[in-house]
């Protein structure tokens, strides 16, 4: 069933992503998948399970452990007229391919004077929270969004999980889609809206008048929970899902902050020099005179994420901290 025809139905984020991939493969013969263990193994997170059987080895390509080469090969294949969807198993391994991503994929269109756009989609799992420790818990999507020439998407909802891929394939730029590991099992409704998922706009997931909670990815659900708790105290939080970290939809953010006059940014990435800093700076520049209180950030503590459960929890942003940050603004503001 294509996203376009979808009648609302309950599904998981994992299946929604798979559905998006299937549709893309069915729709366009130039689309193929490439990555480690996406075929025989069925995908490290079982996202690509069954695709090898359906589409065959030519289009579902298991790669050796050679991140730099197969990401670079994705760039070349895109230049050669294909529409590669490259999976880097997790963001933690993407550093090995960063030269290809930054120095080639992001740069080629501009430096060739527009001759060579790179219509490449890269998917990676991201995030912490599964006790997989320092080298397997990175949240670098905000960091990646420093790089001009890339588009950075972070689907949080089922509709976006299913629909953003089509938007990524519809543009000719390198798009990186970050899927938070903890979302794969999440359930929700897949609706017709998936078909119109774009790579342009942030979404207001919960309207509110008192404070803007600005976030993306798995942290969206922490913010929604925090908003519920705040509502019990009479504070109505507006929750904004950025959806796309580059280019940033500053308009939606700024308009929200202008209405609510307060903002807290919630990001699982490390605090310093992250996307939360960027949003704070944008609000500074574009809505300073509208603010009733300084913008705050609730981010990961700046440590390599530890294994032990209590330590990992302490390292990551939690609902209680979001609530506390908001509460402190009202205390201060009054």
């Amino acid at each position, binding site marked *: 069933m294509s996203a376009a025809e979808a009648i609302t139905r309950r599904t998981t984020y994992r299946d929604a992503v798979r559905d998006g991939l299937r549709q893309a493969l069915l729709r366009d013969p130039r689309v193929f998948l490439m990555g*480690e*263990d996406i075929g*025989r*193994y*069925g995908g*490290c997170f079982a996202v690509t399970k069954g695709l090898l059987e359906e589409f065959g080895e030519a289009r579902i390509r*298991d790669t*050796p*452990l*050679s*991140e*730099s*080469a197969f990401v670079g090969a994705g760039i070349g294949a895109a230049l050669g007229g294909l529409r590669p969807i490259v999976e880097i198993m997790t963001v*933690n*391994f993407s550093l*090995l391919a960063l030269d290809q991503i930054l120095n080639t994929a992001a740069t080629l269109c501009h430096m060739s004077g527009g001759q060579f756009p790179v219509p490449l989609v890269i998917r990676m799992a991201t995030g912490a929270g*599964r*006790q*997989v*420790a*320092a*080298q*397997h818990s990175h949240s670098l999507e905000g960091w990646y969004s420093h790089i001009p020439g890339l588009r950075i998407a972070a689907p949080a909802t089922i509709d976006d999980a299913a629909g953003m891929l089509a938007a990524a394939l519809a543009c000719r730029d390198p798009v990186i889609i970050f899927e938070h590991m903890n979302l794969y099992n999440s359930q929700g409704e897949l609706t017709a809206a998936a078909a119109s998922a774009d790579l342009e706009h942030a979404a207001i997931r919960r309207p509110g008048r008192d404070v803007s909670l600005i976030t993306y990815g798995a942290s969206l659900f922490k913010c929604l929970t925090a908003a519920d708790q705040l509502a019990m105290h009479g504070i109505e939080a507006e929750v904004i899902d950025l959806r796309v970290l580059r280019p940033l939809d500053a308009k939606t953010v700024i308009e929200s902050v202008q209405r609510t006059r307060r903002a807290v940014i919630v990001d699982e990435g490390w605090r310093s020099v992250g996307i939360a800093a960027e949003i704070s700076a944008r609000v500074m520049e574009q809505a300073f005179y509208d603010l009733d209180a300084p913008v705050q950030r609730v981010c990961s*503590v*700046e*440590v*390599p994420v*530890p*294994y*032990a*459960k*209590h*330590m990992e929890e*302490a*390292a990551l942003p939690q609902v209680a901290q979001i609530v506390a940050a908001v509460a402190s603004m009202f205390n201060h503001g009054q």
Partner: protein
Amino acid sequence: MTAMPPPVVTREHGLHLLSQMLRIRCFEDRCAELYSAGKIRGFLHLYNGEEAVAVGVMQSLQPVDAIAGTYREHGHALARGIGMRTLMAELLGKEAGCCRGRGGSMHIFDAATRFYGGNAIVGGSLPLAIGLGLAEKLHDRKAIAVCFFGEGAVAEGEFHESMNLAALWSLPVLFVCENNYYAMGTAWARSEVQTSLLAKVAGYCMRGESIDGMDVLAVETVANQLVRDVRAQRTPAFLEARTYRFRAHSMYDPQLYRSKDEVKGWEERGPLIRLTSRLKEAGLMTEDDFQRLQSSANAEVDDAVQFAEQATIEPVEELQRFVYAEETL
């Protein structure tokens, strides 16, 4: 696999090797249980089936030698002499763990035994080993560095760069490739066009040997020669140990990529079965001996689990300790 005359082994040494392998097997099986019970979390990669490699190689190493490995390193840690209690405490995320519970299964480190991990990036420890070898060379010390890695790492650029550097600079590094024929679900022949590792090694003018990694005596013998040469001649060497992992890649793996028969075939040639029957056939060990080793391994694991369960967790206030080193030089 390769037919070689059974190396001479004394009863004492034979039992020692067997007990080392049994300790590992027993430890790993218990880890699997603890994982199902939710006491060990995160990623857990077990070493069942590959015990002969770590145990065989470690026999020739000295306390001054430096070791680097992968996320599948419990066996190496135990064979190197890291205490089972501190290891189990680490897996349970306790402060008494070798890394205070911060590393978990994939990140075992121990300064006392020069055990440098514990690396969850495939190929990531190869350059590290080069540097450890370089330090020995520039310090003009007699230690060597040993690097264990899976055959999956061979496709990574870091393998290539590290092999060349080690050979170019004549560094005392022993590369031990644990070829268990799969990298997650990717069979060796589906990841490399040249499946002879020794042919690859020739591209770096490095001495290499390939052995039956299910035969601990063979591993020990060949590793011993290589370690001796690396130590004496200060040049690198490469050892391929052909082996097999009996369990899933990690605890999440449905193993769609290999048949039960294939696994069974390897299990029948497993390192414990092999050594056990060899020692028995040679009249060096009785069934009683075996049972004694088995229970002693069990008891050690019991003790380690008990220790780990009772141990306390690191205070959360310490979260930001050690992001930077505490003393200056």
